[in-house]
């Protein structure tokens, strides 16, 4: 499979790899995909009091395109408000990385991941200080 230079760059030098404390109320965690399907993405955002995403981290089990999609996404969401981040479309990711048709699902997964992370953050905020243990249970 021939990869675009951008996929290779993100794969070789993934940005923002790592984890935040998922119990931190300012952190939203999205975990999407399934090992059986060959890809699992964990995306975390750290949101400040103004509702702006200050920082992001990811870990991905999956092919090069899945790793690149999540790495790119962490770059894009930083500095965006939650509302802006919700509007990121998988097609933009796919276009930026020049993903071939069989790899489009990787960009879909990335879009799902940011949506899940935002939802998790908002759920935490609504619940006040009570931290949630699991992101997707």
């Amino acid at each position, binding site marked *: 499979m021939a990869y675009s230079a951008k996929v290779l760059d993100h794969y070789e030098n993934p940005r923002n790899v790592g984890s935040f404390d998922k119990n931190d109320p300012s952190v939203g965690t999205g975990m999407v995909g*399934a090992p059986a*399907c060959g890809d699992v993405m964990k995306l975390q955002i750290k949101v400040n009091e103004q509702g702006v995403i200050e920082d992001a981290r990811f870990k991905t089990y999956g092919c090069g395109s899945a790793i690149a999609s999540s790495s790119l996404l962490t770059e894009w969401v930083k500095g965006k408000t939650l509302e802006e981040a919700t509007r990121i479309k998988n097609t933009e990711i796919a276009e930026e990385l020049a993903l071939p048709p069989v790899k489009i699902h990787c960009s879909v997964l990335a879009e799902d991941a940011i949506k899940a992370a935002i939802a998790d953050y908002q759920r935490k905020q609504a619940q006040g200080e009570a931290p949630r243990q699991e992101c997707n249970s």
Partner: protein
Amino acid sequence: MDQHNEREARQGRLKLPIYLDYAATTPVDPRVAEKMCACLTLDGNFGNPASRSHVFGWRAEEAVEEARRQVAALVNADPREIIWTSGATESDNLAIKGVAHFYRNKGRHIVTCKTEHKAVLDACRQLEREGYEVTYLDPEPNGLLDLDKLQQALRDDTILVSIMHVNNEIGVIQDIEAIGEITRERGVLFHCDAAQSAGKVEIDLQRMKVDLMSFSAHKIYGPKGVGALYVRRKPRVRLEAQMHGGGHERGMRSGTLPTHQIVGMGEAFRIAREEMAQENARILQLRNRLWNGIKDIEEVYVNGDLERRVAGNLNVSFNFVEGESLIMALKDMAVSSGSACTSASLEPSYVLRALGRNDELAHSSIRFTIGRYTTQEEIDYTVATVREKVAKLRDLSPLWEMYKEGIDLSKVQWAAH
């Protein structure tokens, strides 16, 4: 010298990428290429082996018959039992469909195994569409067949059992001698795909009660596009031809014989016969070196039995690392993976699934296959690279993180997609 510099230094003597996909195909041995080249041009042996009226044909026929003797010699068969084909896929099709069609009035039941090559499985599927019944046996978790289960699957209307000798993905060696005893006693024909075993595992068709056996040239340093089917004479096995035409190969497979391909296959089989023992020992030592170099990595599993296995194959799952991303990381090595992402179907390896491996492990598998031109330096470089890249990808893996936190991944409810 730190690890990085040491690697650089070694790399200086290495030609990258390193070929570790000998089960997919092999380079043609220069001795084989030389013999083939002598059968192409005006100065060479270019005649049609079927031409009976002049010396060009006679000479070509002589070369083809010499190759037939060489192929037969490797497996201790009679040269008259060797039928030339375009490769093991054609041999499998000819054997399975040819027997099924010829013996259709005797019975319509066939027994095979879920881990067979697609050429066998797809030929069986086609027969199912034609009204035959096929039993697909499950292998044991180590990839080997339980022969009691094979015995129990045989019925009064079973006409054929098709079981491969060496599996292409996991390299395990089935006990075809024992299978032959079972099938002969029951009066059932036994076809064996030996594409991955010829020249690597001893085959003695005087002793083994195999009735049909498929061979390929390009898996043992011969050219692509040529193979053979062994069809036993005593007791006689009959086939319905799948390719009709000039009646070549005693009517079993028409088509002008490609002299250069056949001569190449013959030479490859001759070399294999002479060098097999020595070569196997060297390759096994390299395979052990590779396995010993990576087996202490956490959560690494060999797929298939490690003892009853062809020397050059090592199929390993690196848990929590997805296969295609590992293949990308191992860009200096030509290897293959059972990961769905490397297949057109987006399904993980059906062979590993048939062993009962879970999806994660099937997605995480890498097949290394070692051959005639693999060197110790290449293996050492591969070990160092694999260790480094698996660690890097695990740092990226949320599954690895969860595993390290003590979370049982099988109990997590995943958001399906």
